[in-house]
């Protein structure tokens, strides 16, 4: 009987599915293929070569912005995750209180407010703070990325908490555990997959974000995506393809890790 409702049997389904996948992956495939081009064209294939990868690795600027991107993502995702854990606990491990849904929405602000709006708002605020304090360090980027990462860290942690039986914590306190001990020995170990997933997702989001960084960064604070954006205003060589391909590979590693962690449920 279920076969009668199989969407795959609807006319045109196969064609639409194929078209969707082509649109999704063909441009990326072209980008990746031309990163291995021996020539410098984006449209004519001159044979296989790893020269653009070698060029990318040798490029001091690429190295600098990559390292900056990675540590920024690590710090922002780390702090966001640390903040997301208590936020998730406070919105799931309490009896329902008025305004609970409101708080949930407020925590997820970055998911609702257009990124460009947040970017402009940050630009104005950061400029004001810079004028008044004279501080021009990485603090602004760290703060902006952290705030932006919080919902992405919060959602998987909250999802994990919702599947955890609160009776376990009750059992721990029944067995003489203080609230801190119950968290340390029961909630936290069982929350690890959620925390790891939250960190991974936050990391990837920080790594990918362009708009926020573009508006907040000071001179010499380019991340990999803003550097790439800057380079595109000049001549595009397959070196950019190579950098993009490596960036894609790195993102894929984290996204895959995220899926593996969230799939495996204790």
């Amino acid at each position, binding site marked *: 009987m279920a076969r009668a409702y199989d969407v795959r049997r609807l006319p045109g389904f196969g064609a639409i599915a194929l078209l969707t996948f082509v649109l999704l992956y063909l441009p990326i495939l072209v980008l990746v293929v031309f990163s291995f081009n021996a020539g410098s064209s984006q449209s004519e294939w001159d044979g296989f070569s790893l020269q653009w990868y070698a060029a990318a690795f040798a490029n001091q600027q690429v190295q600098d912005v990559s390292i900056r991107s990675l540590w920024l993502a690590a710090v922002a995702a780390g702090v966001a995750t640390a903040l997301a854990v208590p936020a998730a606990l406070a919105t799931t491990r309490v009896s329902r209180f008025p305004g609970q849904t409101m708080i949930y929405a407020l925590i997820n602000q970055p998911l609702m407010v257009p990124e460009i709006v947040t970017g402009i708002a940050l630009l104005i605020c950061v400029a004001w703070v810079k004028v008044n304090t004279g501080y021009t360090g990485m603090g602004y980027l760290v703060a902006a990325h952290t705030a932006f990462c919080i919902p992405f860290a919060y959602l998987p942690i909250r999802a994990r908490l919702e599947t955890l*039986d609160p009776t376990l914590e*009750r059992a*721990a*306190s*029944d*067995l003489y*555990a*203080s609230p801190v001990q119950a968290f340390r020995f029961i909630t936290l170990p069982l929350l690890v997959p959620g925390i790891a997933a939250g960190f991974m997702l936050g990391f990837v989001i920080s790594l990918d974000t362009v708009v926020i960084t573009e508006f907040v960064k000071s001179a010499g604070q380019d991340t990999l995506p803003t550097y790439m954006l800057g380079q595109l205003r000049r001549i595009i060589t397959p070196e950019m393809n190579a950098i993009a391909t490596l960036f894609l590979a790195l993102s894929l590693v984290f996204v895959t890790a995220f899926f593996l962690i969230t799939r495996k449920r204790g």
Partner: protein
Amino acid sequence: MTPEIEITGLSKVFGQGAAAFRALTDIDLTVGTGEFFTLLGPSGCGKTTLLRMIAGFEAPTTGSLRINGDEVAGKGPNARPVNTVFQNYALFPHMTVAQNIGFGLKMLGRPRAEVDTTVAEMLRLVRMEAMAGRKPSEISGGQQQRVALARALAPRPRVLLLDEPLSALDLKLRKEMQSELKRLQSETGITFVFVTHDQEEALTMSDRIAVMSAGRILQLGTPHDIYHAPADRFVADFIGDTNFLTLPVIAVSGARATLTLPGGQTAEAILPDGVAPTPGQSVTAILRPEQAILTEPPGATLTATVRSAVFFGTDTHLHLTLGDGQPFVLRRQNTGDLPVPEPGSIVGLTLGPGVLRVVRD
């Protein structure tokens, strides 16, 4: 009886204003040390709320709760000498069986050697030595039940609370665990407070039972008292099977009343305390299905028409209609290959002395 748990004037109201729900009303209860005490009632009667208040998961709205003489109403669950076996066991999934059992002692800060010794002793007590290194997901439901028991007993609580712990087990395993629980209780001497909605389980296991309904204790007594002298119609109906007969009163003398049975004969019935009907008034009397004996119609106390007979092996249930049309179920024990009366035939019933009892409606 040394009191272990003393509850006085305990009430619990959930919510406020128009949405307020009174879960427990004026509970007075004393559980003795070493007693197997059961809270019995249908779902929603407040038995689990009462258990959760003894454990410390809920705070009473009013009243006092003492354990071993100490007022615990303001204390958290981790500050009470009480452990719980949860309905779904609530075993810690990331810990082994041995780590689960040792958790309470570890939290109490006992030395490692003592924890290990007690864990080994508990594993032996519940016959789970071979499973010490397994995770809860790697053992069966019955085994999880034993681990949950061992975990709750390991810290040697003064009181063990059991929240319908057998409801998830199949019949055979449930019977096995019932005797297992009785054995553990007599071996450890710990006071057990057991919550169940299964009246048979309550009758077979308990020293005393509190029958609850709508947030109140209707009757508190031994299984024998509750079965044979139910306080009111609800208790009589909830515990075992009962025939309710509406019968007119002829005379009252002290705690006994003479009632007219369908067909004209009379019988003596026991009156509960505080019930004094006047002659001419009708009362509700109860008679258990096994308390009437099947005889030949001549010389019987009552005669009845057979509507149907259901054969159960050990006994046969006869669905009868009395002379005045009231239905009656009689349980005849099959002491041999006895003939089953045909539907439509007339049978006689005799009543043993003192079996008829008036109940409060």
